[in-house]
């Protein structure tokens, strides 16, 4: 189980990086970056997990029940929010790049400057 949880995080991180390096489209780069970032969600949640523990919401379980770590879950929430805003700014940059260079292919952008 340990191998699977951390392996998924590592896999998402590296697969996203491969996507960024191979991408021929800035939108694709942004999407691959969000794949990289999603590896951090998996990693954080995997670290805070306790076997047999409940979700850290005491609305319907008695207090004192063992729960998984709420701090990493709050961190993951922060992570998701920051990822969404970063994506918005990067997409805005992609729009500007397309306006200036007439292409979204990162390889052709430098060539077209002039």
């Amino acid at each position, binding site marked *: 189980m*340990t191998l699977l949880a951390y392996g998924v995080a590592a896999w998402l991180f590296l697969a996203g990086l491969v996507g960024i390096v191979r991408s021929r489209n800035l939108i694709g780069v942004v999407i691959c970056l969000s794949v990289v970032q999603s590896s951090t969600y998996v990693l954080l949640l995997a670290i805070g997990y306790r076997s047999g523990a409940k979700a850290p919401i005491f*609305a319907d379980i008695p207090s004192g029940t063992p729960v998984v*770590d709420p*701090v990493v879950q709050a961190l993951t*929430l922060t992570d998701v929010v920051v990822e969404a*805003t970063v994506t*918005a700014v990067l997409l805005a940059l992609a729009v500007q790049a397309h306006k200036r260079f007439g292409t979204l292919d990162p390889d052709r952008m430098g060539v077209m400057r002039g």
Partner: protein
Amino acid sequence: MSRSARLIVFAAGAVGLAALMAWGFAGLPDFGGYTGRYGRIVAQIAGPDRAATNTVTFTAFDVRAVDTLVEEFIVFAAAIAAVALLRHQRGEPERAEHPDDVLRPRTSPALMVVGAALAGPTTVIALNVIAHGALTPGGGFQGGVVLAATAVVIVAAGARVRLPPDEPPRFAEFIHGLGAAGFVLLGLAGLVFAGAFLNTTWAGHGTTGALLSGGAIPLLNVATGLEVAGAIIVILAEFLEQNMLVVEEPES
């Protein structure tokens, strides 16, 4: 650098990175065997100290509220960055004479009916998610996104939205700023009434499980909800305006 050379350099780096990650992950606690004390203490005190049942929200808006304040400012800054990046640039082709002709592809009656039917329920769900942040899964960030979705549904249903040129939607800008300022003001209220910035105890505890419980956590959630909803509407409006109001330059 050619494409294949770049891939070879990346492959070498990626192998090294994978090895480092494997080494690092090997030193982490086994999956399911986490023994950190901080989270356990936070989970224990949420109920007795603040009458909050959602310990994740309790962490985000009370124990680590300063982090959330910074996070709010990240959202705030990102929305402004998007507006700054997407504004009408000098030298860009002028907008169409009659923006409405460009802006309004004909909305199908089915879309209008579904949009109109969804707008009310979506608003209620958004407010519900925001209001119960201290009790059950949800809170300002999640509810704020749903609230922004309401605006999207209304626009999709064909409400006439006239965007003044080069200006983000005023009302969304307003609640965007109001939410960010509200969070800081609620933090200052903690400083004044409870002796510490972002201390949430000044608002009273309430009954565990009741709508008004968890001190100032529900208020902070409302501020966050407004801020997030405003930010997302501003960002979406800017992107929509790009496609709908600026005349496409012919591909060269």
